[in-house]
């Protein structure tokens, strides 16, 4: 069963603007609305990564606190709240996995930089619609087992291609081919609007 609540939340971009303004004014009740809008999708993603209820709860709390504390840097006019929150959530969960595994990745710094609020300005959130969600799900199901595995290792375990090659005991070139072909298939099915 797959879940695309952010797609519906993305339809409320007008509401997001007003909500972001209230969050910037540090109105505590705005946090309640933020949680009601994005709490579920955040928990679902984090739980998929850490697979532990207690840890997932801790990381959801940390995610929302991080957003709350960094709200001043968010552009409420142009920013996309949902994609930002999900990126922060994934980073927290991947960071946790790495600390547990004792693998402080060489690219740990990127986890901090790839969630800066300024990156989420001017995102075309209207491309997040249910049609594309269905197409993505169908496209994912059509991937080969190896392609699915590398996508899951990247998105849900935070492994780089070198780390995937070690984990899967496969040559780096082979892993790169699987990753590129998988992303290409998903990108193509998402359509031209997401294509570069």
């Amino acid at each position: 069963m797959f879940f695309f609540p952010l797609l519906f939340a993305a339809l409320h971009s007008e509401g997001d603007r007003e909500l972001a303004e209230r969050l910037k004014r540090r109105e505590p009740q705005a946090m309640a609305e933020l949680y009601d809008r994005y709490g579920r999708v955040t928990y679902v993603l984090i739980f998929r990564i850490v697979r532990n209820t207690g840890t997932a709860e801790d990381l959801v709390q940390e995610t929302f606190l991080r957003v709350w504390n960094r709200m001043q840097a968010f552009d409420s006019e142009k920013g996309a709240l949902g994609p930002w929150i999900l990126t922060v959530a994934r980073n927290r969960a991947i960071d946790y996995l790495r600390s547990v595994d004792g693998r402080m990745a060489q690219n740990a710094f990127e986890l901090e930089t790839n969630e800066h609020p300024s990156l989420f300005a001017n995102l075309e959130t209207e491309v997040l619609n249910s049609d594309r969600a269905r197409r993505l799900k169908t496209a994912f199901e059509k991937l080969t087992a190896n392609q699915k595995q590398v996508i899951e290792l990247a998105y849900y375990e935070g492994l780089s291609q070198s780390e995937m090659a070690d984990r899967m005991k496969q040559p780096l070139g082979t892993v790169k081919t699987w990753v590129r072909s998988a992303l290409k298939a998903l990108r193509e099915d998402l359509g031209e609007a997401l294509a570069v």
Partner: protein
Amino acid sequence: MTCEHLKDEYELHALGLSEGFEHAEIEHHLRQGCASCRAGIRNALLTNVLIMQLAPDVEVPRGLRKRVLASVGAQSTDWGWRAIWATATAALVAAVVWLGVENRQRTDYTAEAKQTLAILNGAETRQVVFGGSVPVPPQGRVLVNAKHGVLLLASNLPKPPAGQTYELWVIPKGGSPKPSGLFQSDSHGSAMYLSPTPVDVATLGAVAVTLEPAAGSTAPTSTPIIVAAMSD
């Protein structure tokens, strides 16, 4: 390397997973203001968000909303829990009254208990709080776990002045306070805050809380309102 060669790496770069030469090249293009790479990374962010949502649905634990809101001082409007507390409180009062009646061999106290309940349940009953003007110092507890961080549970916190917030500090023995997160209290002056950063318990001297500007401080700028010293 051209943007055409780099475009297959955009998603991994946006995830913080690009490596080596490709990573350096994308960073170089972005620093140079390459419009194509900027647009590519933006699109990759959206693609990534869609892929992240392939995660299978699971049930969200009850109480998580309340916990998240409490950490920033927002009140939960979770009426389900309120109803549970109200029911539990009423049951407790009824049990206490019933036990009292039993122990006193159902004498005149029955009438007194009925009267007590009548007051508690009466819609026309008015309530006046006393002793509220007497300042009560903050109290609570700090729980420290080497792996999971610091959990602060506090009550009687003074209302922060406008533009200020609480900041938690982890203070190593003989060291400088380390900023460990910002939080707000609720309207009753209570707060629960988790700082999930692992702590070196062996060298931990104290956990403290100060009032700081809303954006937080890198070092305390006011006298701590809470200091929880770790005993050896």
